[in-house]
């Protein structure tokens, strides 16, 4: 302004001076215009939010958050992370957590310990099932060396997997406060390694065991009667049973169904290198945990009946031979088929010392 007022009264300006003045005027007018425009814009924005919104980029709407929540990853979904196919929000994660922590965990514990308590109660009230007649001393081959080896390998692996699996689920409540972080860190790491590396071996061996025993475990009519009579506990009469009784067949088919599910889901969890998604593994984990805890609970019954619960049962799986009386009382239909093959203890000892390779096949369908 000083410039303008100083120059204006100067009379007739030279042509050079006039040009400079014109430029200065133009700049000032332009500046004033720009400034005033700026001020009015601000004033408009403050006064009228609606008008601003018509020119601004659209705001984020509830629909977009709904889209996020749905876990949708359409063709125009981008994730800056390398090889990431995760949706923005893992909607099923919380469901998995709820099912695992609220239901599977506590009820699994109740199932396993409840079963143990029931078996203890049964043992104290009913007691061990003794042989009714004296042993004859004549023995029958029930389990070949191969099947015994397979059974005990699978059984040992099952127990290790059940213990390590339960440590993964419940260990932090027991062992961490008990041992402190140093030992707990080592223990839980070993637990996971054992579980993950022995699991597949168990899976393969269980399938082989199931295949090798399928002939003896085809359900028959008398198995239904066996169940109706509670395996002989209801009524005084003995119930018919072939090589495998109704209960053994039930355990077989539980392993053949639930066991296979547990193995399959275990493989899904154990081999993340196939790029299966988070959601797949959530479901695999629930199936695996429910199935495995169920099997663990039922296995306690199998272990009880095979050891403490029944006189003469365990020796079949350890030595391979059972007493004639035991066979007659527990597996009468099988006994009828093989009663001409009984051996004296001396004959059995002779066979075993000769290497066991001459063991005849003990498997008979019944």
């Amino acid at each position, binding site marked *: 302004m000083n410039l303008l007022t100083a120059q204006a009264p100067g009379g007739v300006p030279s042509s050079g001076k006039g040009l400079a003045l014109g430029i200065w005027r133009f700049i000032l007018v332009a500046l004033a215009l720009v400034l005033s425009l700026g001020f009015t814009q601000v004033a408009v924005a403050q006064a009228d939010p609606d008008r601003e919104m018509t020119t601004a980029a659209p*705001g*984020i709407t509830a629909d977009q958050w709904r889209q996020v929540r749905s876990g949708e990853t359409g063709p125009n979904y981008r*994730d800056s992370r390398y090889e990431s196919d995760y949706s923005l929000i893992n909607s099923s994660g*919380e469901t998995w957590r709820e099912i695992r922590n609220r239901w599977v965990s506590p009820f699994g514990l109740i199932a396993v310990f409840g079963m143990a308590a029931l078996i203890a109660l049964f043992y104290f009230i009913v007691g061990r099932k003794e042989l009714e007649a004296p042993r004859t001393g004549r023995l029958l081959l029930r389990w070949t060396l191969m099947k015994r080896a397979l059974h005990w390998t699978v059984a040992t692996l099952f127990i290790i997997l059940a213990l390590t699996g339960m440590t993964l689920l419940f260990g932090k409540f027991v062992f*961490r406060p008990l041992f402190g972080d140093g030992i707990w860190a080592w223990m839980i790491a070993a637990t996971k390694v054992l579980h993950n590396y022995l699991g597949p071996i168990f899976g393969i061996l269980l399938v082989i065991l199931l295949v090798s025993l399928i002939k003896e475990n085809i359900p028959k009519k008398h198995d239904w009667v066996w169940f109706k009579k509670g395996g002989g506990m209801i009524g005084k009469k003995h119930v018919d049973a072939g090589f495998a009784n109704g209960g053994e067949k039930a355990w077989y088919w539980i392993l053949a169904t639930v066991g296979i599910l547990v193995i399959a889901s275990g493989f899904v969890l154990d*081999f993340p290198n196939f790029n299966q998604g988070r959601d797949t593994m959530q479901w695999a984990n629930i199936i695996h945990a429910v199935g495995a805890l169920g099997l663990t609970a039922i296995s306690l019954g199998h272990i009880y009946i095979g050891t403490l619960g029944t006189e003469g049962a365990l020796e079949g799986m350890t030595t391979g031979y059972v007493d004639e009386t035991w066979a007659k009382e527990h597996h009468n239909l099988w006994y009828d088929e093989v009663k001409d093959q009984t051996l004296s203890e001396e004959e059995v000892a002779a066979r075993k010392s000769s290497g066991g390779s001459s063991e005849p096949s003990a498997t008979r369908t019944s």
Partner: protein
Amino acid sequence: MAQMKFMCDAERCIECNGCVTACKNANDVEWGIQRRRVVTLNDGEADEMSISVACMHCDDAPCMAVCPTDCFYKTDDGIVLHDKDLCIGCGYCLYACPFGAPQFPQQDAFGERGKMDKCTFCAGGPAESKEEEYEKYGSNRIAEGKLPLCAEMCSTKALLAGDAQDVADIFRQRVVHRGHKDGAWSNNPQASADNLAYDAAHKG
């Protein structure tokens, strides 16, 4: 004590990935791991939206609830941290996390994933020495009185980090200033009833 929170203002995020880079730089994160990621929905469409996500340091953290080794803990500032010495790489935190925050250096057969890694809110983790802490968890800016580098570096200040109350206050002011009639809750039928913008204007 403070309750530390991240918040990403989706209306400001321009998908520049500066936060991702800043995080990798500040924490020297292992190859193949990105603690923070930027997700864009409807890329190239009118309703395009970008948002930067990492561990959100949940109040009721699902990772903490499902961890078989109990390796997670919460600091007094409400930051969820984990002990890599206890981590066995089972992946459960990843199944449970709503934000896909936990990551593993490997993904091999027999569940060999290595130790889980995730955003620490630039608060390091349990270690014997500073060097060990940096090696395992990255920098501990919180101990130095600084906020996470991702938020500090954010060019549009879309990503906010700090005490939940401060973050909420800043966002509320923005909402008021933007002048949305219904606050940040556009198209929400409940908005006019709740009168969120009015409440915000009077509180902010």
